[in-house]
């Protein structure tokens, strides 16, 4: 059972028998009034998106999803294909179902596939993934101020902010939960 203070982006809930994931979360408190918890959530079965506002005191059921360890094989026209290495069973997930997670999939990566009544509805990635930068402005000599950042694009097409000293061609570590840069990776 969750209460309002558990609500956050990425939390999975069961509402009227169907699993939902919170894709945007905002806590507001008008003046000195009662707290409001504004959620944008996606139905994990049909992809529909809803806005809901909850007040403190409400409770929520956990989404009873099962995890299956699987390996990411490849991407084709049908979507992203994963395989259970014990049973060799394959599951295909669409880019829409994966959301931003598709940017962080690497061939042969071990992931957990979330299933609901046997249907694959999402993926849990390792917390950190290493990806190579394919596009970034060069480091300007003299820009030594710590904390300066610039946009960079990694091999999967994902764009994020990195420190200004990170160069094109370098491998970086990304936190898949936040989508943010963590550190450079020495090869």
């Amino acid at each position, binding site marked *: 059972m969750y209460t309002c203070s558990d609500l956050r982006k990425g939390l999975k809930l069961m509402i009227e028998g169907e699993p939902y994931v919170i894709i945007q979360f905002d*806590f*507001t408190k008008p003046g*000195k009034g009662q707290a*409001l918890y504004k959620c944008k959530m996606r139905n994990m079965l049909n992809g529909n998106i809803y806005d809901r506002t909850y007040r403190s005191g409400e409770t929520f059921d956990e989404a009873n999803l099962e995890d299956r360890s699987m390996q990411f094989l490849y991407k084709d026209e049908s979507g992203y294909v994963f395989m259970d290495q014990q049973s060799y069973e394959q599951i295909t997930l669409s880019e829409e179902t994966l959301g931003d997670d598709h940017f962080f999939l690497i061939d042969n990566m071990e992931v957990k596939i979330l299933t609901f009544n046997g249907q694959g509805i999402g993926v849990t990635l390792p917390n*950190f993934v290493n990806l190579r930068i394919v596009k970034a402005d060069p480091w300007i000599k003299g820009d030594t101020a710590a904390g300066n950042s610039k946009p960079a694009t990694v091999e999967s097409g994902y764009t994020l902010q990195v420190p200004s000293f990170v160069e094109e061609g370098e491998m970086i570590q990304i936190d898949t939960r936040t989508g*943010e840069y*963590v550190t450079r990776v020495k090869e």
Partner: protein
Amino acid sequence: MSPASKNKTEGCWPLARKQPTLWNRARILQSIRDFFTSRGFLEVETPQRIPSNAPEAYIVPLASGAWCLQTSPELCMKRLLAAGYPKLFQICHCFRQEERGNRHLPEFTLLEWYEAGADYRRQMRDCEDLLAALLPELELTWRGRRINLMPPWERLSVADAFDSYASCSLEEALEEERFDAIMGVEIEPRLGMLRPTLLYDYPAEKAALARRKASDPRFAERFELYILGMELANGFSELTDSQEQRRRFEDEERLRRSGGQTPYPLPEKFLEELAAMPNAAGIALGIDRLIMLLTDSSSIDDVVAFPPELL
């Protein structure tokens, strides 16, 4: 996976990337201090750990032994007013449980200032002056939206705001106990979009420490400042009637306890000394949110070094 390099410049990026913003933050704090000091306000520091806060139905204090951490420094500030300090300000950390979001930290920085002989209209002008001192160009761009800060700002009564923006009138909202929900969902996001909005004259039951309007006691002299949909400050003409203050505290404390919150004693020393307090106005302004606006930051996490999750 090869080990991450850990040379000196690399550091911890979530912390390191905040350096430019934290420099800005320090400069803004310095400018705020200069603004009040040059106007004859005394900067004070009062204890963060206190026997009890002013009870408020929806603000949850954090326990600290048998005492608690302050949710606002207002009780000590007003005791100083009552003792004859006419102009005071303080910049301090306050603590409110269960408040966490894009614009909320459970430990945050509040600026409060108090002035004897002033009322809430005087403090509305203080807000205009303070922003003009911080942004002499009188223009602010936040998240791609530009806003003009030239005084006078929009002054909008709460009743008019319901008529303009809400699906029902103020009276209906109060009757159906939907005031907060409508304020938070239908009204607040639309306030202060072209220039700042000073939303004023709250229903008396929504202003536990504010003086009622002499001309219409259903309302209290309380106002809030909004810029680009963000609530920045809450001020009021202070209630100085000790007996009425006690009744209102008892009502709020009853609401707190019925909501299952830890009971705290009423702040008796404050209530005793309130009788000696001159007419005055006081206001609290969220420093972290102000810095979000001034540094074009999208999240409150970006303007403090350590949001709780980084600890």
